[in-house]
């Protein structure tokens, strides 16, 4: 074929007649939403992990009789500790009353004490823990990372689940494109036979179908991508505020947004490659 216009005429027009654009639109929409959720989870997990990376807690079973003040003084004296924030006794009492009920915390029960510690980046937590153990023998030195570890594990699992879902939807999109390509081949079987008879190569014929399916996929991916972007803006607005509050940062970074923007293009490329290989595979069965 020497001109693209003549090539285009070989397959009848009417891009939105088949189901391909709709399938691609739905799949692109779903993939982008799931991917955005996965990326937001990854971002949140990163922020949470980063926030607690150098944070530790000093736990005292009984903070009374000046033990909390002594622990704070001791912590401030240890090299490598950059921040010391004791939890006020009143706040601890309020927290415990939620568990024990009003008046449940009598004068005879000891009130535990907590001291949040910030360690200098690269600080030797083992050495600092040992130093604090010597200064405040009854205290426990706990990394906050250990506390949030189950949450981070859950977030990590959800990220992998999101990735798996995106891959599954990509596979489903590929399967839909294969079916669409086979359907198109069946519809245009007589045209293909004529073209083969006249001397067209498999490549020339595949190019026609590849172009048609790529165009259908582009229309679908654009529609699905725009719908997903709108949904992310509307739904994500509230989610962003919540995530920002929880994790201390935006749920999606610039790189995540670029990745999401690339997804419709990736869907078109995937559909085109799959369509081409499906058509060539089917054509090779001809005599």
């Amino acid at each position, binding site marked *: *074929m*020497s*001109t693209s216009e*003549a*090539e285009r*005429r*070989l397959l*009848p027009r009417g891009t939105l007649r088949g189901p391909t654009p709709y399938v691609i639109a739905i799949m692109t929409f779903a993939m982008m939403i799931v991917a955005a959720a996965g990326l937001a989870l990854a971002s949140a997990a990163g922020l949470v992990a980063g926030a607690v990376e150098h944070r530790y807690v000093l736990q005292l079973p009984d903070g009374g009789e000046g033990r909390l003040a002594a622990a704070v003084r001791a912590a401030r004296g240890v090299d490598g500790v950059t921040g010391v924030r004791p939890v006020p006794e009143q706040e601890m009492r309020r927290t415990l009353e939620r568990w024990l009920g009003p008046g449940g915390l009598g004068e005879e029960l000891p009130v535990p004490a907590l001291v949040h510690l910030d360690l200098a980046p690269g600080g030797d937590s083992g050495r600092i823990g040992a130093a604090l153990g010597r200064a405040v023998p009854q205290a426990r030195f706990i990394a906050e990372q250990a506390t949030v570890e189950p949450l981070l594990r859950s977030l990590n699992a959800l990220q992998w689940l999101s990735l798996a879902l995106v891959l599954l939807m990509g596979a489903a999109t590929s399967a839909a494109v294969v079916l669409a390509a086979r359907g198109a081949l069946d519809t245009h079987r*007589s*045209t293909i*036979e*004529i*073209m*083969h*008879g*006249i*001397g*067209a*190569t*498999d490549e*020339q014929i595949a190019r026609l179908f590849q172009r048609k399916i790529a165009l259908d996929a582009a229309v679908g991916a654009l529609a699905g991508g725009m719908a997903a972007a709108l949904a992310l803006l509307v739904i994500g607005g509230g989610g962003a505020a919540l995530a920002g509050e929880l994790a201390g940062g935006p749920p999606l970074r610039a790189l995540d947004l670029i990745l999401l923007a690339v997804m419709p293009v990736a869907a078109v490329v995937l559909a085109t490659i799959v369509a081409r290989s499906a058509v060539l595979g089917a054509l*090779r069965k*001809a*005599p």
Partner: protein
Amino acid sequence: MARRRARARTRRRWKGRPLSAIVEFDSVGLRYGTGAEVLRDLDFRLASGGFYFLTGPSGAGKTSLLQLLYLARRPTRGRIRLFGQELSDAPREALPAFRRRIGVVFQDFRLIRHLSAFDNVALPLRIAGRSEAEVEGSVREMLAWVGLADRASARPPTLSGGEQQRVAIARAVISQPELLVADEPTGNVDAEMAARLLHLFTALNRLGTTVLVATHDVGLIARTAGAQLMRLEKGAMVDPTGILRNPPVESVQAR
């Protein structure tokens, strides 16, 4: 002008050249699936530049034989050589180049319904990668030749059977093939158009194209001087004199 120059070149190419076999069938058989052979023990040669008629009763295997010739099917046994090349088990990728050297007029026309008459006729040239300027001139000239100049933009469903057949013939001969295979090419046209088409075939043949026409039209055969007759009966070639196995090259050259 360009077309005339091309024809002159072709004429020079063929003038005085010793004619060889363009088609060679050796013990060729064809069966569909596990059924009985529809073609069996076909042994014949078509001289390059010859004009042949293929006749035989309905169901004798004429269309199957033509399908083997235009490489739509492969034989289940035996060897086929076209243009001096063994093609019985040639790789698929090699076949398009040979198909472009063959013009085919199908019995059922096989026009692409949604393309105009112009685009149908232009198809072989576009597949061969000719420029649009070249396509435009050649197709207009060919459509005028078959009397369809004013129907260039018409689509096949709006054309009569005879018009469709002429479009199919124009498509088959547009690229001046070395071998022209036609299955009942005058079946849907009146006597005057049949004579014009036969004239087109003989003109192409004079330019060096080997022509094989499957037909029941004895009038067509009678009007073509020097044509060789081939007859198929129950899948076998009737060749009592052995003339098809050893074609008389001299007689073809003399025409």
